[in-house]
């Protein structure tokens, strides 16, 4: 049984048909990436998995259990955590409080402290600013905070929405290394990226989304070789 099975989901915003039958699976231990243009439905897919959006049709199953009837916060407790796109950190909470919110469902004090150390080691800038309010951080620092916050949840399945967005080139490398580290420690990752280049390098498999539908799915290596992907998403002619 796959860890996550998404089957033929249809999602609407009002009467805009945003997802037109997306199906995908993520096996335990994998990094799977979703690539596609702006508006193709990548973020919508993640929001549907994490329960903030409910599909009108289709099912989302985590280890065989149907997630549709659970509210978003209970899905988090089941080990699915999403890092949303953009800098949606809590701007009026301090860095430390933001990280604590990430660990909201956990009760193991020691483990939380260990993870806090880990995040601070990963992003020393955050430790320097631990008592600063989130809104005063720079864009890049906010992105670090968003990822750090998700790591604090110790999820089994991490949904990452555009982690590289707005980050300096050096940091992007670092972020993707971190993603691989997290994965090696046993976290399954579903990664949405517009930076297809990097995403296909770290991922095991990938799906290409176009206007609410899956256009292609294959191993990352094959996708890298795919002519269409090369042309459209990798900028190689």
């Amino acid at each position, binding site marked *: 049984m796959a860890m996550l099975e998404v089957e033929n989901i249809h*999602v*609407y*915003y009002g009467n805009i048909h945003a997802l037109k039958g997306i199906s995908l699976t993520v096996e335990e231990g994998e990094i799977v990436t979703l690539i596609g243009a702006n508006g193709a439905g990548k*973020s919508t897919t993640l*929001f549907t998995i994490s329960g903030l*959006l409910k599909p009108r049709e289709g099912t989302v199953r985590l280890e065989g259990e149907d997630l549709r*009837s659970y509210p978003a916060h209970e899905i988090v407790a089941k080990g699915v955590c999403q890092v949303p796109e*953009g800098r949606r950190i809590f701007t009026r909470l301090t860095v430390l409080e933001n990280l604590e919110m990430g660990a909201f469902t956990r009760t193991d004090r020691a483990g939380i402290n260990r993870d806090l150390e880990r995040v601070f080691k990963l992003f020393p800038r955050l430790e320097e600013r631990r008592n600063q309010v989130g809104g005063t951080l720079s864009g890049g620092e906010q992105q670090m905070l968003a990822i750090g916050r998700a790591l604090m949840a110790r999820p089994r399945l991490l949904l990452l929405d555009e982690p590289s967005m707005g980050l300096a080139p050096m940091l992007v490398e670092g972020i993707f290394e971190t993603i691989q580290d997290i994965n090696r420690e046993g976290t399954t990752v579903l990664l949405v990226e517009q930076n297809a280049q990097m995403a296909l390098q770290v991922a095991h498999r990938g799906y290409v989304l176009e206007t609410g539908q899956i256009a292609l799915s294959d191993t990352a290596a094959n996708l890298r070789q795919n002519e269409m992907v090369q042309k459209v998403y990798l900028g190689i002619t």
Partner: protein
Amino acid sequence: METSTRFNWRESVRMGLIAGVIALSLSLIGLVETFGGRDIIGGVVSLGQIFLFGAIMGVGYFSAQRNLNARAGVNLLGGLLIGVLASLPLVVLIFVAEPINLRQFLPNASPALLELITFGQEQVTGALIMVAVCGVLGLIGAGIYLLPSRLRRPLLIGLLLVLLIGLLSEIIILAWGNKGLGLKIRPLIFAAKGLSIRGALLVFLVVAGLNAAWSSQGDRVRQRLDALPSGQQRAFRWSSLILGLVILLFLPMILRTYLTEVIDNVGLYVLMGLGLNIVVGFAGLLDLGYVAFFAIGAYTMGVLTSQGDLGVGGMSFWMALPFAVLASVMAGIILGVPVLRMRGDYLAIVTLGFGEIIRILALSDFLAPVIGGAQGILKIPKARIGGVELVAPEQLYYLILGACLIAAYVSWRLRDSRLGRQWMAMREDEDVAQAMGIDLVQTKLLAFAIGAAFSGMSGAIFASKLSSIFPHSFNLLISINVLSLIILGGIGSLPGVVVGALILVGLPELLREFAEYRLLMYGALLIVMMIVRPEGFWPEATRKRELHGYEELEAKAVPAE
């Protein structure tokens, strides 16, 4: 997932206890006792009992609705359980009320109430009867829901009409029952108090029958009407309009003095409602201080025409009326300017504050030399048309009717005009409206000004109708009243204003026991309407779609730019 055939114990117990708490509350706040004296069916059932048992039946009905998939028998069982549980708080009340003298805490836990809920028996028997009655009622409630809708609708509407006619029996007898044909019909359907049993049955059968006939044939009638050529359709519409006007013209003759007096009050509220409808319904500006303009209209009329100490103008009604309206318009603009940039909910509170300021000023010693303070303004003359002084309600009726017709006409013309579209666009999205070249300042001020004009006119007529005005007539409750009535009728809808005013102003005037509970019911009504039927009883077509639209929207977790 709940399996649909299993009996949902927990839900039924919950609902039963809720029903019980509701029934107990109704008893303890005095509703049951107060209305216990008003018989719907003479000697059989009073309004108080209907409140009490209606609540239980309603919950039974509602829970049957929620267990939609369950088998009929299971559902009935649920209704029974709910009814029995619902009686328990009342049973407890029966047994504790006397030994601990509950009345020192709760003045309404009176012997009269106990008498009512024990059905006049001693405690144990009474309690047993109560349990049995409530159980049966819960069962009936669930049962009604299980009927096919072909039967259910006529049944419910029939019951509703029996209730309504029973409720109004006193008035009906007063108006028509004492001479001619009325005197002959009267013993047929009315008892000394309320309907007779025979009358109730008769009313029920006629209404239910008519309703059943309409639901089977009504569509065909409507279809035939739609199929008429447009010329004939227009003729039909015109003739019904003219018919309506004729009825309005002769209404006082049908209704007689007492009812006309009531209708006059309804009319004043309709006038205010039409004004507030422009502000809230068309332009989307929630104004909770609307009474201020009513007060200003009334005081202007008072000061300009009064023949007492405070009168300064000594004008006639007709001379002063334009000034009264103008004063309200000016007040509307003066209030409008500072609040132009405020968002909806802040606007509500500020306008509420404005209304209070006007009332406090009217009451204060500060302005007393001008407008009389708590002593008010006296000796305001009546309006005259030709040589006739409009004193009797029947005469005032035409003045009020005229004002309402003018206001309704203006509202109707404006709604489909360029200004009406400006208002609507502003209500929908202020920023985009502005980007369409709409001057928000002008558009908002016009809404406030026109709304204030109607209210001012209403106030002016009110002043001359009563001959004297006092600050306490202009409290916040008037604003709430007007707001409630346009919401009840349907925000933005012109016929809705009339429907709302008839229900919220007309009915309570007819039922004097309502006085104390009027606002309790308004409050509950506002909540229930917003949840169940936010578009009101007679909605404007688009508003209905808008208010139900949000239910379809999924969570808006759209990633922002």
